[in-house]
């Protein structure tokens, strides 16, 4: 019998390539448009762009749900000014002219005292623009969200290896044979990690996941180490202990690429103790075994010694010194790092730790791989091949979002260096423009170039080299509102956005006038102590004014933060605007190629909204900020697209690296090309420049790569990286804490700096648990965490009709052992308490989880009335935030002072230090608590969606 005839070859519509922005992974997408019922073009289908290096054609759940995001009823429709009290959600729509004028009226006068403006951006991918804008305004108060996100990972990486995970590097998925992942649920490199795990599986590699929870990636791991939160540092150091014990270390690699042979001064009690010995020109010294003398490490033909105890001349004095390697060996050979010693704290059996070390050593050294390719290193030495140690690692917030995260992340990088697997075949590979040593990054700037107003002397964020680089005024007070780069968090390379509202509310270190924010739901899921932050945002002075006088906010959707703002600058959706994923900012390169990309308006907005970057440039022009106005005072850039093409940071270097030069044939450096954006669009909205074959590995010391990097304009001179096993920068702060030097910490922080700023990676107990002392085990014996759901992006997913069906509410997953102990059953409601707060939630039983750790999906809980959802939407009535249990400050210490709930080195928010208890809730309403009253909304949401009906027959 013949099959029925069906029409199978329907055309898809017009294809346009752009870049996804349902998250920060930056995948290439093809958007198909078809005329809808009213003839207007609508989105028929979004697919991954096969040619795109990031996603190679695949697309995640969020990306595929772009249609529902783009047509979300929660989209803002026009500029608005608040008419009800803050938080009420009562607004009046106004014109853009009014909105921009209001913003200028508020911000204009602040140019006289620029620090009164705080400009903070969330998941910003245009930081090179926004930071430049703030710099031109002259306020020291700028940062993006990195400080509460993963600065531990980023800063530890940059300081240690001149690169880091995600944007800065990735495993060599094609060649790796052993992949060890620490504390990752999803990460920004969403699709690439999944593609990579798929490849690894196909190639028969082994995948080890260290994570208290066994879901997502961990579910397919060959070996799961259900570690107790906050103890990864111990685990990693124990693996290092085992590698030392069994001599499984790549000495040649260490000598060539790390500071292992550098001589560390051993002069306890002096201001030189622990610093690296240098020659007169400031070049670090090593000990030449052949000549038996200290020579600059750059000297050719030396036989560096790793174990000598020597005496070197520093200044006019002779001091004792020992190579970094010796310090390392001594430290990690200690019995306290033996697997048996750390097993009880980590909850990982000694045998498993030893197994992990054995596996790492075996694959690194017995399964070495080579790529036959000649290359030349920075010393001019020729090599016949690239030698690879096919062990790769990846880590994210599971290790970084702890108060001991910086040191843990450093430990991980040190481990990678010890086995010689940084930027080698099969190991971890940097993505250009990385590696880049911390010394090649800017230092932080918080002062105006000339006097007290006008542009800042340099970029806000950067990498301090020592106490002298802190952002302190002459009296030692913080220059920045978030107190980044102070003794509280000296290496806060990404700023500390999570402290802004609390500090501004407290007027500590000073009061501000206008808080200008972009793309961050600070009144909800991106703050700790959400309830408290809401109170700070709505708090009034005795005069009845708000304590934080003005809040300007740009969002694209009706989020919780919108209702707590005064002036709303509605943004477009990602399909409606220009965007620039720039190498000046957060590159989206691949290890083998330099990549940047754009977004452009694939569909025109049908509301009175404008792309935020264009609005910022408009505001800059209206405020007369240097670089944004012509000599006659007119706006220099028509809009963001104009800026993307024509702005130059340095001659020939602009936001986009591709298709530069008059004919569009230059990459990296070249004059602006008026056709540049068209060329991007023709090429799938990205540009890609391949590295030369001999530049593909060991980029930190590869002459061909370094030359290429200079050609591309990443630096003006080669910037090879020496891996810092020993981080002298930390020792400088430690010396200051011991009383040496001019810039001195407050006494209350001296002890903490001494213990935590160890120049060799170390472990200390996370602060929250340690601070609560005996109360911890008695009152808060458990840990509570969140994980990123793969199908949701923070708070924005819930307005998406498709995605929200997957995560309509979030239960708290509780280990079966705790359930049994507490008489909890699936679906029960329970009170979860921390030292700071109390929430009521629905629980679900789980087996495959560390038995001290409960967890939930992040940011599913919503405020009633937000996101165009019904007031009784489960997100609001059953969903919840763990954030209510956290506080941005730790409980008061004996001296009455409260430490930030952050890493003491970088200021990274310690989300995962949370300690809790749980009890079954009395029978009653099955509604999550605390209940925050609804915000008013005029959003109208349909009762039914039949998307695409017009295209079906």
């Amino acid at each position, binding site marked *: 019998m013949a099959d029925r005839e069906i029409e199978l070859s329907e055309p898809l519509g017009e294809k346009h390539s752009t870049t996804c922005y349902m998250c920060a992974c930056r995948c290439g997408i093809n958007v198909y448009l078809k005329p809808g019922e009213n003839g207007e073009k609508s989105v028929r289908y979004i697919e991954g762009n096969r040619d795109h290096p990031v996603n190679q054609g695949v697309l995640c759940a969020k990306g595929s749900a772009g249609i529902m995001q783009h047509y979300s009823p929660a989209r803002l429709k026009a500029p608005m000014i608040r008419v009800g009290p803050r938080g009420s959600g009562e607004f009046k729509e106004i014109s853009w002219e009014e909105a921009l004028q209001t913003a200028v009226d508020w911000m204009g006068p602040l140019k006289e005292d620029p620090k009164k403006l705080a400009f903070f951006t969330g998941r910003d991918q245009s930081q090179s623009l926004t930071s430049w804008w703030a710099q031109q305004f002259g306020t020291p108060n700028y940062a993006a969200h990195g400080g509460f996100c993963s600065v531990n990972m980023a800063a530890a990486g940059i300081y240690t290896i001149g690169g880091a995970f995600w944007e800065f590097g990735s495993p060599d998925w094609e060649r790796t044979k052993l992949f060890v992942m620490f504390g990752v649920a999803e990460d920004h490199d969403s699709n690439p990690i999944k593609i990579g795990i798929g490849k690894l599986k196909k190639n028969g590699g082994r995948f080890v996941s260290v994570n208290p929870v066994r879901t997502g990636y961990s579910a397919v791991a060959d070996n799961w180490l259900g570690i107790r939160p906050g103890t990864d540092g111990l685990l990693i150091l124990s693996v290092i202990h085992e590698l030392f014990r069994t001599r499984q270390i790549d000495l040649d690699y260490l000598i060539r690429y790390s500071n292992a042979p550098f001589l560390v001064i051993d002069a306890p009690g002096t201001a030189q103790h622990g610093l690296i010995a240098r020659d007169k020109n400031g070049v670090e010294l090593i000990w030449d075994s052949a000549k038996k003398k200290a020579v600059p490490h750059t000297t050719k033909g030396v036989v560096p010694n790793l174990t000598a105890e020597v005496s070197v001349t520093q200044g006019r004095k002779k001091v004792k010194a020992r190579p970094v390697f010796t310090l390392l060996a001594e430290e990690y050979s200690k019995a306290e790092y033996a697997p048996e010693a750390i097993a009880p704290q980590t909850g990982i059996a000694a045998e498993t730790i030893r197994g992990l070390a054995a596996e790492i050593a075996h694959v690194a050294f017995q399964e070495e791989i080579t790529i036959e390719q000649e290359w030349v290193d920075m010393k001019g030495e020729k090599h016949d091949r690239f030698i690879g140690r096919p062990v790769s690692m990846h880590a994210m917030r599971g290790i970084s979002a702890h108060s001991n995260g910086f040191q843990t992340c450093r430990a991980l990088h040190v481990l990678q260096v010890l086995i010689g697997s940084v930027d080698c075949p099969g190991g971890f590979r940097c993505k250009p423009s990385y590696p880049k040593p911390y010394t090649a990054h800017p230092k932080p700037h918080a002062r105006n170039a000339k006097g007290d107003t006008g542009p800042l002397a340099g970029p806000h964020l950067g990498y301090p080299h020592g106490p002298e680089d802190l952002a302190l005024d002459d009296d030692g007070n913080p220059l920045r509102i978030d107190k980044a780069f102070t003794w509280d968090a000296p290496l806060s390379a990404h700023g500390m956005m999570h402290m802004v509202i609390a500090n501004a509310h407290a007027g500590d270190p000073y009061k501000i006038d206008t808080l200008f924010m972009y793309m961050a739901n600070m009144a909800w899921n991106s703050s700790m102590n959400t309830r408290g932050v809401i109170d700070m945002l709505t708090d009034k002075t005795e005069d009845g004014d708000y304590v934080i006088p003005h809040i300007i906010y740009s969002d694209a959707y009706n989020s919780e933060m919108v209702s707590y703002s005064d002036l709303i600058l509605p943004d477009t959706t990602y399909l409606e605007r220009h965007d620039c994923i720039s190498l000046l900012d957060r590159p989206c390169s691949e290890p083998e190629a330099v990549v940047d990309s754009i977004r452009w308006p694939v569909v025109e907005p049908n509301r009175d909204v404008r792309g935020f970057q264009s609005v910022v440039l408009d505001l800059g022009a209206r405020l007369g900020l240097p670089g944004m106005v012509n000599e006659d005072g007119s706006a220099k850039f028509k809009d963001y697209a104009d800026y993307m093409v024509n702005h130059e940071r340095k001659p020939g270097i602009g936001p986009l690296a591709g298709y530069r030069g008059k004919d569009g044939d230059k990459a990296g450096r070249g004059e602006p090309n008026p056709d540049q954006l068209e060329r991007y669009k023709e090429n799938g909205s990205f540009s890609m420049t391949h590295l030369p074959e001999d530049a593909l590995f060991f980029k930190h010391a590869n002459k061909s790569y370094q030359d290429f990097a200079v050609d591309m304009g990443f630096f003006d001179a080669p910037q090879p990286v020496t891996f810092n096993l020993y981080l002298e920068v930390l020792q400088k702060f430690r010396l200051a804490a011991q009383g040496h030097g001019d810039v001195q910490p407050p006494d209350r922080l001296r002890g903490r700096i001494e213990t935590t700023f160890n120049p060799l990676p170390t472990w200390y107990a996370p602060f929250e648990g340690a601070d609560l002392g005996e109360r911890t085990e008695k009152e808060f014996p458990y840990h509570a965490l969140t994980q990123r759901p793969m199908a949701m992006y923070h708070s924005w997913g819930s307005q998406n009709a498709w995605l929200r069906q997957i995560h*309509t509410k979030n239960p708290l997953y509780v280990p079966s052992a705790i359930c049994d102990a507490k008489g909890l059953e699936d679906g029960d409601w329970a009170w979860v308490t921390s030292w700071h707060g109390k929430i009521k939630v629905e629980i679900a039983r789980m087996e495959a989880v560390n038995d001290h750790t409960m967890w939930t999906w992040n940011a599913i809980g919503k405020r009633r009335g937000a996101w165009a959802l019904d007031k009784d939407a489960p997100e609001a009535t059953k969903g919840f935030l763990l954030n209510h249990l956290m506080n941005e400050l730790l409980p008061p210490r004996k001296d009455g002072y409260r430490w930030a709930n952050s890493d003491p080195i970088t200021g990274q928010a310690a989300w995962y230090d949370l300690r809790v208890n749980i009890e079954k809730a009395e029978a009653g309403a099955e509604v999550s608590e605390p209940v925050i009253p609804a915000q008013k909304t005029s959003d109208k949401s349909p009762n039914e969606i039949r998307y695409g009906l017009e295209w079906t027959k």
Partner: protein
Amino acid sequence: MHPALSVILFTTLSGAGYGLAFVLALGHGNPGALSTKIAWFVALALIAIGLISSTFHLGNPQRAWRAFSQWRTSWLSREGVMAVLTFIPLTLLAAMSVFNDSFHIGLGYLGGIMCAITVYCTAMIYGSMRTVATWHTGWTAASYLAFSLTTGTAIYLTAFGPAAGSDSNVIWIWLAIVFIAIAWLIKYMWVRRGQAVGFGESTMESATGLGGIGKVRLLERPHMMGNYLTNEMAFRIARKHESKLWRIALVLGVILPIALFVLAIALPSANLFFSGVATLSLLAGVFLERWLFFATARHAVGLYYGGDEALVPAE
């Protein structure tokens, strides 16, 4: 399974209608008597109401006619075809009674057999479902047939038999009591088997193929809230409600009707009253039985939603 009202109405009402028609088609009731004429009308009306109500749960009832096409494979289609075909002898018999005060024995037997076949087809819609182990048994058809006959008989003897000059009312009542006993005995066998069989051979381990590793439990549903499948297939009543409801069904469907029928025999003057209440009670009992038939059935799909642990509880 979700107990949809329309389906319950359909199966109980058309079942009773076919039972009544069956009794009439076998030649009971004086064709000339008004009550027989009414009885025919009621039988046909019950069948029709049942059939019409069965279309209420269709997504596209306007295309219901298409359901006659697949009689070669589909029991639902067969049921539809049979229902229509059965209307022919039944309508003829009814017409003969109404217009001609006559009856045809050959046509009657044909109609009776067709009634039974139609009820059998209805039962087999469920009885053929391998996915619902509780249903997948000969006892399902047996119980549908038995309840059809029992309810039809009860209606006949109560409302029409005496007036239609039928044989001894007492014999009919004893017959009804015997039918009730048989029907519920069959049901008892069905329930006993059903409770033992649960999801049948299928388990969460076989559903996922992960049994080789160990014991399987659901951690997370695909979508947080209910969906068509959970609403339709993963309906569950708590065990304690289940046994309570069975007890009520037994009281309404067995104890009360039998007691009332006995009373009807004992107190002939109130015969109509007692038989009437007995029949109504029986119908209510069967209605509840039908509700439980659906509500207690475990569909294999439930295994993907956590098996008995996580099925959607009945509120």
